[in-house]
């Protein structure tokens, strides 16, 4: 399992990458492997306000429907529309082309409350 060092992680298996005051959000390699075969992604509207812990979308594999939770608070400034046509990009490149939304943060320090790479790896191995 791959867990990049420069990212932060949530207990719902989302990753967050900070670029200025914008958080890029996706799901982790562990999460995409659990889901396998992602075949549908329902994305939120751009410009919408979001709160940490709230549902912002849905991700479906052949067999399952899962919520995507927003790990931070702010405003959605971009969504990855390309996932509509190629949802399996999340399987192929979860930390790159498979990003899901970009959120302009209300408070940049919120990200510090998320898990580090080591913490997330430990969290995953304990939850297995």
């Amino acid at each position: 399992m791959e867990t990049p060092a420069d990212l932060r992680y949530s207990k719902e298996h989302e990753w967050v990458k900070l670029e200025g005051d914008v958080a890029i959000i996706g799901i982790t390699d562990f999460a995409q492997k659990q889901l396998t075969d992602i075949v549908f992604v329902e994305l939120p509207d751009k410009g919408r306000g979001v709160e940490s812990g709230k549902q912002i979308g849905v991700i479906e594999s052949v067999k399952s429907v899962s919520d995507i939770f927003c790990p931070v608070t702010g405003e959605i400034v971009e969504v990855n529309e390309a996932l509509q046509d190629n949802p399996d990009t999340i399987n192929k490149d979860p930390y790159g082309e498979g990003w899901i939304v970009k959120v302009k943060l209300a408070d940049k320090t919120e990200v510090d409350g998320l898990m580090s790479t080591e913490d997330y790896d430990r969290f995953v191995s304990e939850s297995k």
Partner: protein
Amino acid sequence: MGELRKTPLNDSHVRLGAKMVEFSGWSMPVYYSSVIDEHLGVRKKCGLFDVSHMGEFFVEGSGAFRLIQKVITNDLGSLSDGKAFYSSMCNERGGVVDDLFVYRFDANKFMLVVNAANVEKDFNWILNHKDFFEDATIIDKTDEMAKLDLQGPRSEEVLQGLTDLRLGDLRRFCFFEGRVNGIPMIVSRTGYTGEDGFELYFDSSKAVEMWYKLLSVGEEFGIRPVGLGARDTLRIEAGYSLYGHELSEQINPFEAGIGFAVKLDKDDFIGKEALSRAKEDLKRKIVAFEMTDRGIAREGYPVFVGGREIGYVSSGTMSPTFRKGVGMALIDVGEASLENEIHIKIREKLYKGKIVKRPIYAFNDKND
């Protein structure tokens, strides 16, 4: 809930990296690598399924015919030695107790293959309909028998390498008894995928040996192990009913679209009266649909026509073959015409779809 039951291949599935799930009280593989890859593998080449959780009953004796004929809706009189057919088994109200395959060895020996979830119910149902004086024994061999399904266009080539049985002579819905890989078994040309293939029934102590043998001789033909995930998507495309979805005690066979397995002209059988009425008074029907909007309709989602709720999705998935949402739905018969536009409510939003021919995927008979 107690300990899950395990087929003899449980360890083998885990060793192959399968994701295991609970199914009807059994621990079963849902996929090994990917539902989509396994699904397409069966369509194009060949896949191997462990379905040893399914139930097998042997009914024997001079009264066996009469007993089975009484509990099933199809006509046992039309089945000859070495052949199998599909039937439903109904209650007095015409509701489906189970759907099953009946194998006829000879006039006094039959095998019934039933759904894992219904083994106990079916066994008791049949036993309770046996007259005390009737010369028929019914033996549940579910635990002693392994069942492997080999499905896909390359199946015959894979299996022929392990047996002297002339598989080219085995026609669909027929079966042989003989040795494969030296192991005595029942080999039937049947399946649940919409592809050519075989179902193998044999002693469960040989399951592991047979499993690995098939995977190794099948390698050059592109064989792969396939889990219940792809079994479901394959059967949905192929239009086959699954008990608890398209069939139940609340759904009769005509509604389910398996009226071909109900022979109202045969002598008295359980549910005959109710079924005669049900046939004349059909109010709802299982149809196949596909989504025209992007979206996946799942089991239980409501179906609408012109703002009116007309039924619900009985099975739904993304079709790996057609790469769109497909499924089956139980809807008002008045709305069940082909190409009729429907809407399905997915998470509070309506998505467009249409009724299509069932099956969505026509049986791929390589011998045609």
